[in-house]
């Protein structure tokens, strides 16, 4: 009877396997025009003139003067213009918009911009401006270092990463009678787009309607950037008085949209001879790009994961998200946590090396246990499984034996222990105050939430939660299309919050509804009494507190925990490092649908493998120079090793049916585990992706042990 915990087939599965799912680009509206964006090519400077080298008959042309409200895309702040007025802050910044009924004519049009280039800031270390600074301190750092027997320092770097959702970004804007606009789009967060458009178009809330189509992947890439595309499509649609489809081709998507923040993280760690961490000083620098967008929040999560799964009495974490003249970096699965834990876990292996200690043993000595506290003072409860996942990973992977046996061969084994906070940081969930609605229908019950389906299985899992909480068969539960005219704001589909947070609100709502129905089945109640609807608001788990100003308290309602063990092989001729197997031990409360959960773990791990080994964004003048799948290489079947997944259950009482956040966790571990496996081969790598060039350098340094230390 119970469906939670069962691998019921996903509700959207059959349509997807049939090719019948309607994605944004599959939609056609009568009289629809095609849109195109003309962009700056300089990283910094001014646009001084525009030349249209084509016959403008039949074209709709939009520039910043066509914007009815403020020329700003509202995210955390409003510093990002919708269209360049004259100042350019990054290459690929949108300047002009064109629309035409015929796509070929549209794309044959030549537009020339007169641009005056100024000297850009491309190195975040030289940036004069911060988007955000954060400081977290605990204990007495000087005393900690004084008590240390060994101090290990190092700097670790990670590069940009491009999302490469297989469906590129796209929006259709449809002007409505009475001056309103409807947006259809491949968007993770319909209410973000709604918020941005009411501001830009100076429209009341009820004149903007945003409908999320099913997404062909998102991974964070469709969290904030769709507001920009929706704004552009809306401006064209208003001016042309026709629907406008604005779909990016792959190259434009890679060139112009957000990426994962590159990071430079410095660690200085004091440790006793027997391996106790006594002082950790961590400096984090993120390249935020040209506008604030989501950088402050990414930096926040990055800082809050900087000490990962370890306890240490004396800590200082200083984080900075710096302005540069590159495209704004944004949300990408993990949201700062992968950068922080890459540095931490690569560094822990260097600490182990300095102590001549087994890396797993060093971790076991310092791993967080219930009762321990994190640097913010957050106390670990029984929901802390750090030690469990670590011990299981060591056992399951044959760690001790392989570690010894592979010494001096072309094979290496490395591990990474990591965690991921579920839901919004700090008091974010309270501020969001998400609402979810359940209503009875002639066939059962309908779930009204803004959670989008981007492949993660949210619609299926939320339906499972409602079915069980209400005590009805799954077939009686339908999930509404996320349409701001229909569904309440249950918050954005980000931050691993859908199962845990939105699911929990629905679980509570379903229990309320069950009482209202007084023992009748929902459809029967509907027949006798007409529709009933119940709207439920977020309630924080009891006992949480957060001080935003001082970064003290409970940063997250709970953490999910995992330990990855990577086995690698080095090709001695090509210097290619290949992952040959990964063992993934993951605790995320309780899997609501094991097949879907496994999909999140394996898929997130593959993205982590790509970030670790092959996905190199080459930046030139602050923009992606290899904006093609030909030379930006995400893992194929041949690059993705077998994965053995072990799910550890530790139900979290305040998540839906015991769930914690899962979506992002698997992204955090593969890169450090792989780099640590390369360290087992004697290769000192402190930067990802570990491309053959970087591996070759490390092989050279191994041959000359004194160099580069």
């Amino acid at each position, binding site marked *: 009877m119970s469906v939670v915990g069962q691998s019921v*087939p*996903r509700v959207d*599965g*059959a349509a*997807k*396997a*049939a*090719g*019948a799912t*309607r*994605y944004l*680009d*599959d939609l056609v509206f009568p009289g629809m025009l095609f849109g*195109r*964006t003309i*962009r700056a*090519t300089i990283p910094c400077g001014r646009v001084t003139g525009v030349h249209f080298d084509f016959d403008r008959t039949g074209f709709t042309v939009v520039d910043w003067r066509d914007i009815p409200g403020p020329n700003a895309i509202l995210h955390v702040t409003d510093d990002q213009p919708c269209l360049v007025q004259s100042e350019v802050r990054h290459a690929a910044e949108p300047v002009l918009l064109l629309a035409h009924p*015929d796509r*070929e*004519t549209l794309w*044959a049009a*030549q*537009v020339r*911009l007169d641009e005056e280039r100024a000297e850009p800031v491309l190195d975040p270390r030289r940036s004069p401006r911060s988007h955000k600074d954060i400081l977290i301190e605990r204990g007495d750092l000087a005393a900690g270092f004084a008590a240390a027997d060994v101090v290990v320092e190092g700097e670790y770097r990670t590069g940009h990463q491009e*999302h*490469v*959702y*297989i*469906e590129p970004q796209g929006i259709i804007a449809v002007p409505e009678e009475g001056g309103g606009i409807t947006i259809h789009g491949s968007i993770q967060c319909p209410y973000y787009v709604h918020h941005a458009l009411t501001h830009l178009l100076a429209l009341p809330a009820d004149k903007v309607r945003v409908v999320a189509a*099913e*997404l*062909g*992947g998102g*991974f964070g890439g469709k969290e904030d950037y769709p507001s920009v595309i929706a704004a552009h499509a809306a401006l064209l649609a208003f001016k042309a008085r026709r629907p406008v489809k604005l779909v990016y*081709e*792959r*190259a434009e998507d890679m*060139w112009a949209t957000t990426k994962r923040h590159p990071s430079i993280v410095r660690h200085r760690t004091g440790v006793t001879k027997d391996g106790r961490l006594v002082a950790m000083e961590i400096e984090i620098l993120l390249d935020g790009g040209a506008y604030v967008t989501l950088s402050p929040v990414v930096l926040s999560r990055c800082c809050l994961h900087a000490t990962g799964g370890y306890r240490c009495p004396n800590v200082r974490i200083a984080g900075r998200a710096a302005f540069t003249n590159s495209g704004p970096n944004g949300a990408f699965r993990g949201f700062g946590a992968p950068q922080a834990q890459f540095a931490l876990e690569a560094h822990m292996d260097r600490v182990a090396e300095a102590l001549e200690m087994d890396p797993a043993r060093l971790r076991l000595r310092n791993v967080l246990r219930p009762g321990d506290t994190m640097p913010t003072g957050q106390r670990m409860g029984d929901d802390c499984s750090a030690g469990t996942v670590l011990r299981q990973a060591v056992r399951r992977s044959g760690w001790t034996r392989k570690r010894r046996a592979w010494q001096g061969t072309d094979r290496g084994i490395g591990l990474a222990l990591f965690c991921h906070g579920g839901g919004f940081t700090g008091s974010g969930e309270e501020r969001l105050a998400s609402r979810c609605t359940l209503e009875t229908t002639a066939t059962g019950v309908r779930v009204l939430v803004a959670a989008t389906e*981007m*492949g*993660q*299985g949210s619609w299926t899992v939320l339906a499972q939660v409602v079915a069980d909480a209400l005590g009805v068969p799954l077939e009686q539960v339908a999930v509404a299309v996320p349409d701001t005219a229909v569904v309440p704001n249950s918050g954005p589909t980000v931050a691993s919050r859908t199962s845990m947070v939105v699911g929990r609100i629905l679980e509570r709502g379903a229990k309320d509804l069950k009482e209202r129905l007084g023992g009748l089945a929902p459809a029967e109640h509907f027949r006798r009494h007409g529709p009933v609807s119940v709207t439920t608001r977020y309630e924080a788990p009891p006992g949480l507190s957060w001080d935003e100003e001082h970064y003290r308290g409970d940063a997250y309602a709970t953490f999910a925990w995992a330990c990855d063990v990577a086995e690698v092989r080095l090709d001695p001729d090509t210097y290619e490092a290949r992952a040959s197997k990964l063992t993934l031990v993951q605790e995320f409360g309780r899997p609501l649908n094991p*097949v*879907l959960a*496994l*999909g999140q773990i*394996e*898929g997130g*791990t*593959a*993205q982590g493998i790509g970030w670790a080994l092959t996905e190199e964004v080459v930046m030139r003048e602050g923009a992606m120079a290899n904006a*093609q*799948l*030909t030379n930006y290489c*995400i893992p*194929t*079947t*041949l690059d*993705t090793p077998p*994965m053995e997944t072990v799910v550890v259950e530790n139900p979290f009482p305040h998540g839906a049916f015991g769930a914690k956040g899962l979506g992002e966790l698997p992204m955090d571990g593969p890169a450090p585990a792989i780099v640590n496996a390369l360290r087992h081969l004697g290769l000192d790598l402190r930067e990802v992706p570990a491309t053959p060039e970087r591996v070759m350098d490390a092989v050279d340094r191994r041959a000359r042990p004194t160099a580069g230390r």
Partner: protein
Amino acid sequence: MNTPRSGGGARTVAAGPVAFTLNGHAVSVDAHPMARLLDVLREDLGLTGTKEGCGEGECGACTVLLDGAPVCSCLVPLAHARGREVRTIESLGGDHALQRAFVAEGGAQCGACTPGMIMAALALPEHPTRERIRQGLAGNLCRCTGYEAIYRAVERAASETVATPGASAAAEERKP
């Protein structure tokens, strides 16, 4: 984007209809012979099951079978289909063993790669080894699954099917 797309204007000139077999039925399309088969399928013929992921032959989302062999329809000009047999995801009807297995195993997450992936899997030999599946699907990118669930789906379909899951011996030979 600022640069006009290559091939712009190609479809404004028509040069007589191109006839081929589509999912078992004779069709004739009045479009430019250099038009991408992908666009012809999606726009002229309304079969949107075939997806565009890159337009440059790298992702495989647009995979269809041409005389039984998988091709990237974004690279195939309409003229190449003249007189030949084109098969798209729509030909499977939704209840094919591979389609059922993709649902059961979670082989489709966002689904953007799925139609292409299933068409490529159709061209695999009858009971492929894991290694053979990896080789056969190497041209199809999936950003969601890490491929493991896709392998499980293909294996499940193979174990369920006694009859050929759609691959012909000819298709197997034609594969590079």
